[in-house]
Every structure is written in C-alpha cells, then in structure tokens.
C-alpha cells in the first residue's frame, strides 16, 4: 500500500464561507465607521456651524432698532386703545335728547350721570296737560328705560314745576354703536 505523503485534508466549505462573511462584515463595519467619522459627522457639524452663523446674523443693530420701534408703537397703541375705548361720546345722546322734550316744557336744570346712565331734570311748563304730554312722549322713547316723576308743584300763576329722573340706555354714550 502506497503512502500519500502530499495529501492534504480539504478545508470544509462552511469554514470558507464563515471566513468570507467575517471579512465582509469587518469591511462593512469599517466602511460605516469611516463614512460616519469622515463624512457624515463633519457634514452635520458644518451644518450646525452654518445655522449658528445665520442665527448670529439675525438681530443686528438695525433689526434691534426696528424691533424696539415696533414694540414701542404696539405698547403705545394698546395703551391708547384702552383709553379711547372708555371715551364717552355725546353726539348721539344730544341728538336724541332734543326729541325727548315736549315743546311746551322747558328744563330748568339737567344733570347727566354718564356712568350711571341717569338724568335728573328740573322742568317747568304751563299746564298739567303739558306734563302729561311730556310723560307720554317719554313713554314712547325706546332709549328711556324707566323714569320717575316727582315734586309736581303748581304755582299761583299756573306754572307747573316738576322733577324727572330718567334711566337711559347706556349705549347712547358709546361711539358708533347707535345708528
């Protein structure tokens, strides 16, 4: 029987495949590492730097001045609006007020309480009939919410004095809300 001194046992295929896989795996990991380290991370860092530079460019002295200018205007306008909203307008009131007076009645005094929307009137007329007419006129006015008549006095000359207290629609003192 001859002896084969040069014979070698063949390496099993699975070991070769495992070897190749290990080599490929090593390469893949190295490629990922290299790509991240030398491309992706520097790219991201550069982007952060450029955004930071862009941010630093914002809020320049001129922009800050514009900002202060606009904010000051806003503050002033808000303050003014608050004041203006509380303003009382007498246009509408005096327009309708003249229509509340019966022609034969004259007012001796008139007191207007804006916050209470109340009118106190001392009035004078020639007859009790005119007082009745005045009351009928007040009844017909939608802006007079309620009224009280008191102190009716008839003087020797026939002149009638009386007091009126009117509760009126507060909207009459507001701007552009009564048309």
């Amino acid at each position: 029987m001859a002896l084969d001194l040069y014979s070698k046992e063949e390496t099993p295929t699975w070991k070769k495949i495992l070897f190749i896989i290990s080599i490929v795996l090593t390469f893949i990991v190295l490629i990922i590492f290299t790509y991240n380290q030398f491309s992706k991370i520097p790219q991201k860092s550069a982007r952060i730097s450029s955004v930071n530079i862009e941010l630093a460019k914002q809020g320049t002295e001129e922009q800050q001045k514009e900002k202060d200018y606009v904010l000051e205007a806003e503050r002033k306008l808000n303050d003014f609006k608050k004041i203006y909203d509380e303003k009382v307008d007498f246009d509408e009131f005096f327009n309708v007020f003249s229509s509340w007076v019966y022609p034969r009645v004259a007012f001796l005094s008139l007191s207007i309480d804006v916050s209470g929307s109340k009118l106190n009137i001392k009035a004078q007329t020639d007859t009790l009939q005119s007082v009745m007419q005045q009351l009928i006129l007040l009844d017909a006015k939608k802006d007079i919410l309620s009224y009280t008549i008191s102190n009716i006095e008839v003087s020797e000359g026939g002149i009638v004095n009386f007091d009126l207290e009117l509760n009126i629609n507060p909207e009459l003192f507001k701007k552009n809300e009564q048309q």
Partner: protein
Amino acid sequence: MNNNNLPYLTISIVLIVASIAFFYFLVLPQFEKISALDKEISDLEFKLENTTNYFNDVSYNAEKLAELGWDNVSKKIDANFMDGPFFIHNMEAYFNKLVVRSGLYLNSLSIEGVEESFEVKEGVEDKGTISEINISFDLTGDYNYFLNLLDIFDRQALVIKINSIEIGSVNQGEGYSEQGDIMDSSYLNFKVEGTIPSKK
C-alpha cells in the same frame, strides 16, 4: 480538529468578534452622536426660521408704520401720556384755549390727582402705567356753545372722558318762556366733571 483548519476558523471568529465589538463600541456611539446632531440641527433650524420670520414681521410692521406716518400719529397720541412738573400748567393753558374756541366763559377749572413731586432718572426710559387725572370745569354761556365745546373735546387727540354734566340757569327762578328751547334760558351754567389720562 485539523491544524490546517485552525487559522480559518480562528481568524473568522476573531474578525466577527472584533467587528461586533467595533460596531458596539465605536459605530453605535457614532449613530447616537449623529442623532444628537440631527436634533440640534432641527432645533437650530426651527429657531432660525422663527427668528427670521420674527425679524421679517418686525421689518414689515416697521415699514407699514412708517407708511402710515406713525411718527406724526405718535406725537399726537403722546398727549395722553404726559407727565412732569409742568403738567397742570400746560393742561390749564390747553383747556383755556379750548373753552375760548367754543365761545363759552370759563369760571373755574380744577385739575386734581397729579403727583406733586416729579423724579427724573438719568438715562432711564420711563414706561409707567397710565393714571386718570380728575378735571372739572365751571362754565357759563349758550347751550349751543356748550355742544360746540363737547365737539371740540371729541376732536382732540387727548382723550377727555366726561363723567357728569350739570346744566342749570345762571339766574335761578327766571320766568317760564315759551320759546321752544330745551333749556328755559339762553345763558346757562355748566358744570362738567371728567378725567384725562396721564403717565403715572
């Protein structure tokens, strides 16, 4: 195990273990770092967008204000935010002028609620709140002149808020007339109370 197979297997195992270790200790932290950088970029871009939009809006509003002549309007509105040691003196002169323009006669004018001492701080811009100063007028004249005064008040940049009005005859007990006027006399006394704004 055959000696010929040993390097293949050993190298394979060493490489796989090394790859896993390399991935775990070096590549994974890289991904974590990339993720953190992405978040930082996203935050910065959001901030940049907001800041840019904000300053664009500011610039747009500043241009609009300039177009609308804000500087002139602001000067007029400033009448409502006045203060200082000459406030009462200035207001008295101002209201005197308005009353004269209306045709009424000013019997008296009272301005109350103004602080008597006034502190000036160097280099400090005062953005104080708004307070109300009480004013009261005692006037004499015609009813139509009074309506004229109310109209003049209404057209002022200074917001004059009237709280109460009392109208009465100057000569109480005047006889009843049938002139058809609202008031029984053309010569009337007016007491007006109100407020004006001032910087606190």
